């Protein structure tokens, strides 16, 4: 800040120039060292386990909205680094993102993306379109490419309610910043293969909000069943997956007791059928 406050405490010119609507670009101009992913990394050192890995995230749409859910575990190799982590981030009224991969970088990315959206909205007097938000996030992941090449790969999943189309939408990304729109359902992270397979069998186009949340919990249970890095519902510690719902009324985190009830339904069902609900063969 010292540089910024030459001239008797007056806000420096960079703050007053009309210039960009992007907070990231503004910060790159006045305080580049505060941006994540800009640091020069020493090469040739093993970078494993410097930051824990965030694991499985699922998302699915339902008529009028979208559900985003994540397990609570973060791992560092074979060690459980954190058992009650929150990997879902409300990015604005109508969008949320979740992260899988290098947790330390992912959390910073989510925080920066949050500010980026809000900053744009305040400067321009209206929020970005969902499409615009998705593109902006792609560019921010691309700027982390250097870190990704060193092993700090982070991939987010963005969900949002598109006010123009009046539906929930899901966007997935690759570490290079490639942006892909996913239809109906998607999953990322270490347990994503199992979660996605489960969703494939559970998904229906006419799911209600709470059934969609239940399907998300079922799929996370299946992921935890087969992937050691994904945490299942912890009934003794009362740690359950987190579920965010976005509809035309905005973003809402399902209250803990509501999720606990849904999780109890899942666990109860598994005592009868350990592999969960089955789909008809034909």
């Amino acid at each position: 800040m010292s540089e910024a406050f030459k001239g008797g405490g007056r806000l420096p010119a960079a703050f007053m120039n009309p210039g960009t609507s992007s907070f990231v670009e503004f910060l790159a101009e006045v305080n580049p060292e505060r941006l994540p992913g800009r640091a020069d990394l020493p090469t040739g050192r093993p970078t494993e386990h410097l930051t824990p890995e965030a694991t499985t995230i699922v998302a699915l749409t339902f008529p009028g909205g979208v559900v985003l859910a994540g397990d609570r575990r973060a791992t560092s190799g074979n060690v459980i680094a954190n058992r009650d982590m929150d990997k879902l981030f409300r990015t604005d009224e109508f969008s949320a993102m979740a992260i899988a991969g290098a947790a330390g970088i992912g959390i910073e990315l989510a925080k920066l993306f949050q500010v980026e959206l809000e900053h744009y909205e305040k400067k321009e007097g209206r929020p970005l379109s969902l499409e615009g938000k998705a593109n902006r996030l792609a560019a921010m992941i691309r700027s982390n490419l250097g870190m990704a090449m060193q092993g700090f790969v982070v991939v987010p999943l963005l969900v949002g309610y598109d006010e123009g189309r009046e539906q929930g939408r899901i966007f997935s990304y690759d570490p290079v910043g490639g942006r892909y729109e996913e239809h109906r359902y998607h999953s990322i992270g270490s347990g994503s293969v199992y979660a996605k397979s489960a969703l494939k069998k559970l998904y229906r186009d006419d799911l209600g909000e709470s059934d969609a949340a239940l399907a998300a919990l079922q799929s996370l249970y299946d992921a935890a069943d087969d992937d050691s890095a994904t945490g299942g519902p912890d009934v003794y510690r009362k740690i359950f997956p987190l579920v965010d719902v976005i509809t035309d009324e905005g973003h809402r985190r399902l209250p803990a007791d509501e999720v606990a009830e849904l999780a109890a339904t899942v666990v109860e069902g598994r005592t009868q059928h350990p592999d969960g609900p089955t789909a008809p063969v034909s």
Partner: protein
Amino acid sequence: MSMPFYVSPEQIMKDKADYARKGIARGRSAVVLQYDGGILFVADNMSRTLHKISELYDRVAFAAVGRYNEFENLRLAGVRYADSHGYTYDRSDVTGQMLANAYAQTLGSIFTESNKPWEVEIVVGEVGETADSDQIYRITFDGSVVDERDFLAMGGSAEHVTTVLRERYVKDASLAAALSAAVHALAHENGEQRELEATSLEVAVLERARPHRKFRRVQGDRLTALLAQGHAADTKDTDTDSDT
């Protein structure tokens, strides 16, 4: 070569201040007042897109009168300052006082250093946990800061508006009642009585009970309904007054 005339520093400052004051008085007024649920901002503004009132951060809002390009510049600087501070530390570390200080320093140095002072007067309002912790700062063109309580008016013929507002202001009034007082005061600008309609008003609130970002614009049907509600209460009051 002609010799420049000597002008005393006092005279220079006085001229600058007069210039700024005149510029600010040319525009329409804006008022800021506390109500039972937070802080209400009302500006006499025909434009629906060129705002005089806007959000700076979660609990902090900005209102300005005077030259649009100048206060828009300040608004943008405030948003950037608040966002970078909140990103570096925590969202709760961004305060109205901090922003008021930055604005005061900026306007103060512009006033002393440049030939043309900025013709703006701004307010930074911060809604706290309780009404007692609400903060309203008024920053004038020369960089002076005043910590205000209850209500204030600025721009246009601010003195007239303040006088009317003082009569009408009730502590812990409802939003409709506070809005009615504000609109009544703005309508009495210049001593004349005008009709102010929803379309020529810019209204926003910092709502204490709102989660996340407390700033909200009040417009369209909601504004019309609130105005009607306040109006109905006013007429009822006058009726009872005349009865007694």
